[in-house]
């Protein structure tokens, strides 16, 4: 092939241009730490990057949801534990009432029972971040009035659930009826009446007031049942907290895995890229050196 001077120059410019293009690409990868800058660099990597970003963002949201669900359930558990303590104390008072003979002492115990009842009412109106936890969907309303009568209807179907996974949600609330109304819904008709817990307290206080030892003794079974109810609900809440913790651990693994996948998908291998850049630089230097030698001389330089 006949080679002319302009061919040499054109080719040299083209080759050096190609060198620079490759170096620019590597430089962009090093500067951003990403394999691709725009989707056309590698559409497959781009598609996966988008998918993984969505997945990671979702997992992060689920992690926040899990934490909030756990706080709610922990408040519920503390409340339940307090209610259990109240019934435990009530049972002790019932057992201890046998040995009380003076009416003054009986009155003192009654006063303690009234205090316990007020405490129970307060616990029934327990709140998490300003929201009452036992009133189902009506978290803006109290469950009980100061006498312990129901203020709102609460159906056991009013379960508040938080999303904690793609197809996974957890029920965070304990319903007022389940606890205070012996497992039944609090219907419209029952609003204004006390539930079983409060009714039992009222009956016991009345029995103490009348110094009716027989009636007091008969209440023992009721409070054992109430304690069982509390324990049943507590066990359920405990199980839910357990499940949350397992899910949290799994999410922690998931986020590590997804972040790793994301990094593998779109982050550059620095060592490799620097090596490649170094390599390209050598090629670039060589092509500059070669180009400089090849375009310089012509026959003109040697004719004297």
């Amino acid at each position, binding site marked *: *092939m*006949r*080679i*002319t*001077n*302009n*061919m040499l120059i*054109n*080719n040299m410019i*083209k080759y050096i241009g190609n060198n620079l293009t490759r170096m620019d690409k590597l430089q962009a990868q090093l500067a951003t730490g990403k394999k*691709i800058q*725009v*989707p*056309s*660099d*590698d*559409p497959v990597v*781009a*598609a996966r*990057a*988008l*998918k993984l*970003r*969505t997945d990671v*963002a*979702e997992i992060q*949201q689920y992690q*926040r*949801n899990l934490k*909030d669900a756990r706080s709610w359930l922990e408040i519920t558990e503390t409340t339940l534990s307090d209610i259990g303590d109240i019934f435990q104390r009530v049972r002790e008072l019932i057992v201890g009432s046998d040995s009380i003979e003076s009416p003054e002492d009986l009155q003192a115990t009654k006063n303690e029972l009234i205090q316990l009842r007020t405490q129970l009412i307060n616990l029934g109106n327990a709140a998490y*971040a300003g*929201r009452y936890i036992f009133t*189902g*969907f*009506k*978290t*803006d*309303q109290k469950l009980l009035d100061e006498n312990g009568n129901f203020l709102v209807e609460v159906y056991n179907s*009013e379960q*508040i*659930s*938080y*999303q904690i996974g*793609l197809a996974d*949600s957890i029920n965070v*609330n304990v319903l007022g009826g389940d606890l205070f109304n012996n497992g039944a819904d609090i219907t419209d008709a029952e609003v204004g009446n006390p539930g079983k817990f409060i009714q039992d307290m009222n009956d016991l206080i009345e029995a103490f007031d009348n110094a009716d030892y027989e009636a007091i003794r008969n209440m023992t079974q009721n409070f054992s049942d109430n304690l069982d109810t509390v324990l049943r609900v507590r066990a359920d809440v405990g199980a839910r907290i357990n499940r949350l913790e397992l899910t949290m651990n799994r999410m922690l693994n998931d986020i590590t895995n997804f972040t790793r996948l994301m990094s593998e998908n*779109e982050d550059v291998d620095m060592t490799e890229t620097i090596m490649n850049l170094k390599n390209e630089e050598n090629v670039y230097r060589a092509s500059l050196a070669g180009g400089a030698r090849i375009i310089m001389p*012509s*026959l*003109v330089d040697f*004719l004297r």
Partner: protein
Amino acid sequence: MGEAFFGLNVAVRGLFSAQRSLDIVNHNLNNVNTPGYSRQQAIQVASRPMALADGTGMLGTGSEVIGVTRIRDEYLDFKYWSEAMSYGEWGVKREILSDLEILFNEPSDSGFTAIMSNFFDSLQELAKDPGSAAVRSLVRQNAVTLTRFFNNLATKLEEMQYDINHRIQTKVEEINSLALQIQQLNRQIYITELSENTANDMRDQRTVLVDKLSKLINIEAYEVVVGYTPDGREDKHFVITVSGKALVDHFTVSTLALEQRDAGKKVNREDIPGLYEVKWADGNKLNVKGGELKGLLDMRDGNEGSVNPDNGLVSPNYKGIPYYIKKLNEFVRIFARAFNEGYIDLDGDRGFDADEFGTGHASGYGHNSDLSGIRFFTMTGESRQPLSTSDFLDGASEPEDIYDVYEKITAKNFSVSADILDDYNLIAASDEAGQASNINVLNALLALRRNADMFSEGAPEDFMKSLVTTMGIDSQQAGNYSDNQKIVIDQIVNRRLSYSGVSIDEEMANLVKFQHAYNAAAKMIQTISEIYETLINELFV
């Protein structure tokens, strides 16, 4: 001994031939860097010999230069012209698609994926605390960001369409200007060549112009023999055709013209008004099949060859700006319909079915509100203000009519409804009035994010992923085509340079060669002169 002074005449011819060749070397060296220049050579022949009177044979009379020819392989020119047109087309497409990729800004932490994630994350927070004013205001703010993202993108896409339209105008003017220049050169070349000369340099110039033209639009350029000149040579006319019709025919030019399309003549519904239709100045339809003009037209009008239902016009079969506007419009319509009405196209017929309405924002109640039927997303009205639910529905109450209302939403006018903007407590979470923590509706809305039936591409984020990937693949393809064409073009240019380019070494060698020839001829004169000196001055003294 023959005629007196015969030898001197021969030697002078030698001087002239060498000098002519030196002139040509000079010209070649001067034009070593002239674009499109082809090196020239003297056509040197031995001049007509003389028959000797005594019958001893023919006596040579030296040399003469009978012409100057350019060294050119015209096949390479045809090859260049046919390849340059796809180089032009794909180069333009690559450039515009790269701009599009930058516009969509994916993958990044601030593109659509991030904005969509933020919106749904704030809905998740709302699910956990539906009464919180802070969270409600956050949801509203993120929804506005989401709608603005689409408004912004659509506006930018329209700006791009406008810019491309402008570039089309420039390209058409460039084509017309080149056609005129070529026509003028045709005239000069033709007149020059009437007198048996070859217009080497003007032909080179014309090739350069045709090279430029071939990048802009699909052309075929050739010389046709139309008859014979009085002295018996072929009478050739240079013709350039575009899709079969002559752009330049010897001394005549048919220019291209631009005409703004009427509102009823839009190729796509999504097009901005006033786009140019490129046609022949004489009114005929122009069929552009290649070159930068084709690239620009494809990008400006391309919508996968779909037919505009308003006027039956067919768009170019490429994914250009209108395609992306159309896809964004489709996204906001379907998303708004699903979010507001719970409408999911389960049977995939992309049409209305009354039983496909489900739980959406409209079926819920806001915080401390017994209002239902509020639409979360609407659009901006004529005064560019967001519409309220009632203005948006405009009296539509039947599911079918409500379905149709959404066809009016575009990416450009997509907006959060005025109701929600005025009062964030109207964001519906509950399916019953007065239940502060009822999130049955909100849960249905949250589930939309993963609803794979919403789009034919899948869930909302899959839709955008697919759109970005499509763009990435198209851009990559355009880049590859353009790179490949560049290699082909470079190869042709190299072969042209190899064949026609000036080699300085070669010219220097020739310079020496002709200098020697000149010197030799001069020496001849000296010798003959000495012979005469001897004959005249010394023999008879």
